[in-house]
């Protein structure tokens, strides 16, 4: 086969061509298109010609929509309740693994990481069976605790209808999200811990610092950049929550919309209610929220300079 001769000057353009073509068509164009859609009204059944410009109507509609606000509240709640514990648990866990596991480390880390790489759908389906009211494994477990003397008072007296009771659907979703992502954070923190110089700990030990003190005075401060990064990832990820909530609420958002995240709502707005304009407007509003919160997390966790 005869390949055409390229000069080194032309080569990068040729090499990048396929990627750029796809990137423009399927990466950048959809974004521009979605911004355009957010200002249109459109009936999908009547073809693309039926679009008409409606100014900021879609945005105003979204801002006055009770369900949109509810979905934002749900999303914020879920991001917080599934996100914060991930870090509170992952940090000490990573410290334990770092200090006490040498030969078994890869296996241990692998076990924690496994939920992250498996199919959300398969896992969410499994969890919906675990969470079922009658004889779901989680309720069976609670039943056992209920019969214990002191602890029994802490758990609900009746079997919990996790997936249909508006009060319990969010905790159920948060549990699944926590379980799925905690291992990812463990790996992040372990990687960061490996870069902390050993002699720092040795010096601290010479000065009589115990393990706890070493954790609070050496490990935690050295991990600050990684904590910032990990928390930002959790915030951004939490606000995009879709699959977990979608499967556990069977695609509808749960009774009383208690498990409906904004991403689920904008999917329904487009594909169940056929309002693509409003759905696009909502996606941009959510995007602004994500951006703002990322910026805030950034400010809160960045080590202050000067």
């Amino acid at each position, binding site marked *: 086969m005869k390949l055409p001769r390229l000069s080194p000057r032309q080569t990068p353009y040729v090499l990048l061509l*396929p990627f750029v073509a796809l990137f423009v068509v399927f990466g950048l164009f959809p974004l521009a298109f979605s911004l355009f*859609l957010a200002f249109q009204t459109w009936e999908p059944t009547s073809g693309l010609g039926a679009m008409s410009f409606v100014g900021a109507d879609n945005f105003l509609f979204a801002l006055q929509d009770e369900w949109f606000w509810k979905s934002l509240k749900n999303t914020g709640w879920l991001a917080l309740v599934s996100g914060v514990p991930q870090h509170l648990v992952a940090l000490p866990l990573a410290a334990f*693994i770092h200090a006490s596991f040498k030969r078994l480390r890869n296996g241990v880390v692998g076990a924690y990481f496994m939920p992250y790489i498996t*199919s959300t759908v398969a896992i969410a389906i*499994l969890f919906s069976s675990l969470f079922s009211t009658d004889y779901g494994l989680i309720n069976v477990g609670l039943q056992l605790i209920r019969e214990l003397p002191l602890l029994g008072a802490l758990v609900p007296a009746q079997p919990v209808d996790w997936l249909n009771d508006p009060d319990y659907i969010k905790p159920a979703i948060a549990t699944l999200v926590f379980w799925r992502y905690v291992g990812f954070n463990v790996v992040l923190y372990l990687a960061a811990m490996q870069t902390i110089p050993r002699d720092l700990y040795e010096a601290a030990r010479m000065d009589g610092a115990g393990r706890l003190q070493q954790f609070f005075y050496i490990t935690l401060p050295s991990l600050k950049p990684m904590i910032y990064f990990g928390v930002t*990832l959790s915030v951004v990820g939490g606000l995009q929550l879709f699959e977990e909530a979608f499967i556990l609420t069977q695609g509808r958002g749960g009774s009383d919309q208690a498990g409906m995240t904004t991403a689920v709502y904008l999917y329904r707005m487009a594909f169940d209610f056929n309002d693509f304009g409003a759905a696009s407007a909502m996606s941009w509003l959510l995007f602004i929220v994500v951006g703002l919160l990322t910026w805030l997390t950034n400010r809160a966790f960045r080590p202050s300079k000067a």
Partner: protein
Amino acid sequence: MRTDRLAPWAAYCIVGIGMLIMLAPFYFMFVFATHSRTEIFSLPPPMWFGNDFLNNLAILTKKIPFWRNLGWSLYVALASTALTLLFCAMGGYAFALFEFRHKKIFFGLVMGTMLLPSFMNMIPTFMIMDLLGWIDEPRALYIPGAASAFGIFLMRQFCASAIPRELVEAARMDGCSELGIFARIVLPLLKPALGTLGLITFIASWNNFIGPLVVMRSPDMYTLPLALRSLQSPVDTEWGALMAGSAIATLPLIVLFVLSSRQLISGLTTGAVK
């Protein structure tokens, strides 16, 4: 000093219990896959494997075109991996070893989209696919996926550290064509990174739910996650069959993961650790 002596044991216990919690759901997925629906929800629930797996499989294949769905999942994942590897290797090499106009701005733009939430593309992607007539076409899944910003990032990082400029220069002096350099020198050197990116792309495609949810409309074209979720019903879910399907969908991932966990974990966290 008492805490010092206690600490390792406490650490082993806590880490061990945590591991159990991480692995238990997988265990129950496989156990439930071998039990009938009534057994799964009996008291006490099954803790060990039963013998209803083939029954469950029969129900599964009667309710949905399961093997066809599995085939589409595999086909899309393989096609998407092949395209991503080729295009990202080419692009990453171009970004790492060539100078061209607006390179920095362009690379920044690509990286910017990596941070973009997935819900942003959901609606316009559906409309573009509708426009192209790609609804219910597997290429609607693997062609857009090939423009992976993460892939470009990974490849550029790796090219910058693993491909010596002198080697490329020397090949050029010896009269090797530019595409020859890419095919005979760059690609072989990129093998480890291609392995990592390949694994990540395959797994992401295999697990992808939002993509097919938006573009695959007929059950015959569903990929596995969509097919499994279509079995969910508010009143009459065949849990045994559903678990069998989920277990079959999960098993290849667990095997891949066990074989390559270190490579996968470091690949998936590169952006973070560097």
